[in-house]
């Protein structure tokens, strides 16, 4: 890492982030900073029970004008996030619960007042009558016959079951090694620093509902609002201002957004709701809960031959818009083979409906749990075979000479050297040295040390061909970007996705610099506003650099042609003789700057010939990669840990990531993405767990109970880059935004299991808490209780 010392400000330069000047000075404008005259505050009455009939909502007489329920919120329709996959069962999610509640924290009534505290006072006065129906808090029980039905029109509590068949029996006959495990990743909560927030106002002048909301996908929120409110999309403007992290939680249409939009129109007053941390922890942003029954088959050398798995994903009570309740499980079925070259693969998945908040795709989506499952299996095979887990991986990974490679589930791996990333990670963390220390019985202050690895691929920027098959409310197609040379020769770039920490205001300006030679400081990137930007499905799925980067490059390229035409006229030469560089056009010694050209077009058109291109200096252009099934960045993570057997504490002694994101637009921004992702992955590995009791009550409802990693808990992560360009994208860039969060639970848990291997301890549940470590050791020693 470190600043690029060349003068380049284009692709490959570690340019400092333009947006940081305002963000680091506390001058960003977030939803919570937005205030309109007469703005009202909203609080929600939320369900105290997980699964119950809602028989009565009693509002005191004097408060009735300030409280709305689904019955009084006239004309609002339920949120519907269907999937076209065969057998998918549709859940209707009324924005305020009607007749029934399906998770603790589900909104039942909306209350408004001049202040939030007063709105909460009103909410306390609303009496709710509920009849317990028995909670489904364990997905493995929820699928059993006789479990209380969450959606009574269904026949069971399963959104979707999928099955991919493979000839496992043939492999089983020849496989020398077979390991079977149950593997779990606990439910988590995403906890971005900024929670969700929405301000809604009816703009009388343009006759539009304007929704300022902390979202990653303003255009998709507009589409969803239109469906729920039966309001034309032209009547809706969605603006995402500065966003304090999303991670997936802001990649959906939220019930509260629908409610606020309706209320602003109903009252003709600006209204605001800011999710507080307790609402966030109790009722929102749940993710990650998977259960695997998984068997791996390998030959005597440890080469992985086949995976046979049944996976359950706890999808919660409703299918979320637009990703639906089956995205996670569908991903499991398609990416469980990981970066490995398998001979057979069989996988059954269940997207289970439970009485918990809907699961939302969190950074990495299913990949984190998938990586956890298969990488633990790899280490189990290594132990069974008496081999080093690195050697097992090296002989099982897809090899560079096989690239480009179509894997067993049809994924197109777009170049790279997976084994090399692992070899480099092993060298960087000094695998040999650690093994020597372990053999010598060397301890870190009395603690056992262990080393663990995980290798993964991250499919990013997957497009039309992947999404149309799922039949969900959103299918990404061509991504568009608008570029406009302003009359002074500076540049506006307009994109329909949204930057909420990705540094896009910088990286997209670098793309413009690469194409036009314009200084990134003279480029403004405008994003996150449906009125100002082309349509986009938004920022998710590690797609920004590939899709939007490509779109900006294409738009700049077309703008360059227009610039050259006018420049050629000013220089009185043929356009073919023109060279564009450094924000100017050159013909030999003579040149015309962008400022000259823009000035002429906008302010001195009399100097242009009559046949000048009337379309001017503004272009909207689109882009889709040659192969749109996604880029495949990859990485190997290596963790060195010490475990205190007595109290179960884990210390991360060293952590190495060797990552290949193809061509890096801004290596420093990429490193930032990796650091942040890895910190979240460490949270998944060691700390974060949103657990529910049998009655479906969430039990980590404050940040004293829901532990997040903080600065002292994150080691000095060392990153090495490999740069194998993707043949399919504009600059060879690959999506890397989620990768850091994928591998840490696997690498760290493998390291813990490595340290405790002598004790015959193998942990298979994330997070690996001190209690789980101590209890596993006690179990192995037969000294439980």
């Amino acid at each position, binding site marked *: 890492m470190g600043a690029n010392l060349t003068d380049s400000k284009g692709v490959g330069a570690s340019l400092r982030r333009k947006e940081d000047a305002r963000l680091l000075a506390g001058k960003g404008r977030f939803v919570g900073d937005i205030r309109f005259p007469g703005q009202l505050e909203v609080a929600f009455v939320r369900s105290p029970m997980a699964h119950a009939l809602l028989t009565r909502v009693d509002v005191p007489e004097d408060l009735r004008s300030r409280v709305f329920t689904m019955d009084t919120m006239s004309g609002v329709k339920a949120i519907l996030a269907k999937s076209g996959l065969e057998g998918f069962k549709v859940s209707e999610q009324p924005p305020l619960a009607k007749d029934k509640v399906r998770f603790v924290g589900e909104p039942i009534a909306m209350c408004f007042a001049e*202040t939030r*505290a007063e709105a*909460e006072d009103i909410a306390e006065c609303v009496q709710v009558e509920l009849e317990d129906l028995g909670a489904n808090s364990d997905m493995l029980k929820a699928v059993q016959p006789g479990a209380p039905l969450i959606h009574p029109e269904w026949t069971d509590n399963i959104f979707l079951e999928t099955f991919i068949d493979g000839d496992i029996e043939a492999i089983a006959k020849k496989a020398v090694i077979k390991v079977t495990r149950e593997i779990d990743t606990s439910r988590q909560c995403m906890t971005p620093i900024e929670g969700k927030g929405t301000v809604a106002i009816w703009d009388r002048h343009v006759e539009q509902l304007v929704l300022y909301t902390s979202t990653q996908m303003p255009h998709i929120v507009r589409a969803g609002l239109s469906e729920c409110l039966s309001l034309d999309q032209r009547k809706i403007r969605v603006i995402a201002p500065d966003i304090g992290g999303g991670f997936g939680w802001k990649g959906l249409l939220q019930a509260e957004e629908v409610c606020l939009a309706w209320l602003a129109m109903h009252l003709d007053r600006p209204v605001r709701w800011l999710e507080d941390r307790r609402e966030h922890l109790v009722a929102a942003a749940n993710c990650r809960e998977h259960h695997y029954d998984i068997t791996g088959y390998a030959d005597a050398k440890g080469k992985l031959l086949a995976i046979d798995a049944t996976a359950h994903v706890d999808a919660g009570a409703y299918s979320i818009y637009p990703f639906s309740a089956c995205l996670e499980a569908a991903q499991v079925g398609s990416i469980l083979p990981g970066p490995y070259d398998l001979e057979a693969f069989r996988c059954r998945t269940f997207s289970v409906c439970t009485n918990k908040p809907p699961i939302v795709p969190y950074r990495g989506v299913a990949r984190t749990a998938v990586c956890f499952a298969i990488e633990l299996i790899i280490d189990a095979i290594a132990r069974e075979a008496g081999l080093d887990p690195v050697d097992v991986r090296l002989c099982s990974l897809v090899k560079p000479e096989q690239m480009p490679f179509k894997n067993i589930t049809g994924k197109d791996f777009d170049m790279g050297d997976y084994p090399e990333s692992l070899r480099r990670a092993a060298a960087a963390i000094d695998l040999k040295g650690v093994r020597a220390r372990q053999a010598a019985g060397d301890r870190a202050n009395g603690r056992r040390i262990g080393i663990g690895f995980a290798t993964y691929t991250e499919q990013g920027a997957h497009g039309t061909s992947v999404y149309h098959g799922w039949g969900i409310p959103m299918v990404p197609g061509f991504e568009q970007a608008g570029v406009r040379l302003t009359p002074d020769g500076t540049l506006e770039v307009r994109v329909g996705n949204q930057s909420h920490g990705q540094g896009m205001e910088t990286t997209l300006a670098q793309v413009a610099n690469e194409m036009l030679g314009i200084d990134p400081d003279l480029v403004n990137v405008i994003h996150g506003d449906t009125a100002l930007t082309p349509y986009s499905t938004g920022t998710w799925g590690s797609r920004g650099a590939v899709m939007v980067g490509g779109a900006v490059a294409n738009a700049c390229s077309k703008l360059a042609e227009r610039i050259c035409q006018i420049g050629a006229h000013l220089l009185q030469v043929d356009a073919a003789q023109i060279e564009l560089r450094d924000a100017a056009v050159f013909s030999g010694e003579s040149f015309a700057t962008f400022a000259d050209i823009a000035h002429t077009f906008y302010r001195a058109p009399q100097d242009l010939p009559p046949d000048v291109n009337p379309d001017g200096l503004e272009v909207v252009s689109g882009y889709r990669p040659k192969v749109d099934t996604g880029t495949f960045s990859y990485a190997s993570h290596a963790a060195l840990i010490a475990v205190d057997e007595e*109290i179960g*504490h884990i210390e991360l002694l060293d952590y190495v990531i060797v990552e290949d994101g193809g061509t890096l637009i801004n290596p420093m921004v990429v490193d930032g993405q990796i650091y942040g992702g890895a910190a979240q992955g460490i949270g998944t590995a060691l700390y974060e767990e949103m657990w529910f009791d049998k009655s479906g009550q969430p039990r980590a409802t*404050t940040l*004293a109970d829901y*532990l997040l990693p903080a600065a002292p808990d994150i080691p000095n992560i060392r990153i090495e880059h490999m740069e194998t360009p993707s043949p399919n994208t504009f600059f060879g860039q690959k999506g890397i935004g989620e990768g850091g969060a994928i591998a840490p639970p696997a690498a760290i848990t493998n390291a813990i299991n490595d340290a405790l291997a002598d004790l015959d301890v193998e942990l298979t549940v994330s997070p690996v808490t*001190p209690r789980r470590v101590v*209890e596993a050791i006690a179990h192995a020693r037969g000294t439980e209780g």
Partner: protein
Amino acid sequence: MKSVAFEYVKASGLEDAAVALQQDGAKVVAGCQSLGPMLNLRLARPSLLIDITGIGELTKIEERRDTVTLGACITHAAIEDGAVPDPTNGALPAVAANIAYRAIRNRGTIGGSLAHADPAADWPTALMALGAEAEIVGTKETRHVPVEDLVLGAFQTGLADDEILTSVSIPRVSKSARFGFQKFCRKVGEFAEAMCAVLDDPERGFTRIVVATDSKPVILDGADLMIREPETIGDRVAISGLGGDAYVTQLRRAVIRRAIAGMQPLGR
């Protein structure tokens, strides 16, 4: 969440505060590091908050031959930084420096921590091991109560409705005294899962091992023996009534053993 509405008064003197405290639903607040979140979660619903941080005598320090008395509103940070006299030659700052985060230490107070009696808090356990005594001023009388008699359980103290904890007196340790403090937190700044403080001061004939529990901290019997023969710790813990499942018991044994093993001389 936002707190329910309450009145707020900043008391200028102890008498003011005591009078205000007569009001039904009144509650004293100093650093507000524990009460603040409880207010916002609406778990605490006082009708009146009496801010005592403006009362001069609550930050006073008195140095006597055998003790140092610290006003209740002295912050953890002041103790950590050595801004107030330390009768323990390093034990108090060592404990203070590891309470939560600096931002909390800047506002949180030693008296507030005792009066709140959170079983996971550091001061009740540490001050009990140091043999500290709290001064309590009520409308009728002023009394002095050892910390072990003040803290009655989780969030429960012997403070009457009209009483305010005004100061804490901490005995001076001998030159030969040793002190050990161990807590296990899942991560830096979190509440402790297990905690033990040990003071071994034979010159004064004072040896004490205190372990935090889910209720009030427990003073272990047989401290001398456990220090001399650490292998007896397991048995002592078993008979000391320290509840908890196997994991919790193991953690408590570990912090006791490590607190004893980690005792440092408190020499000058």
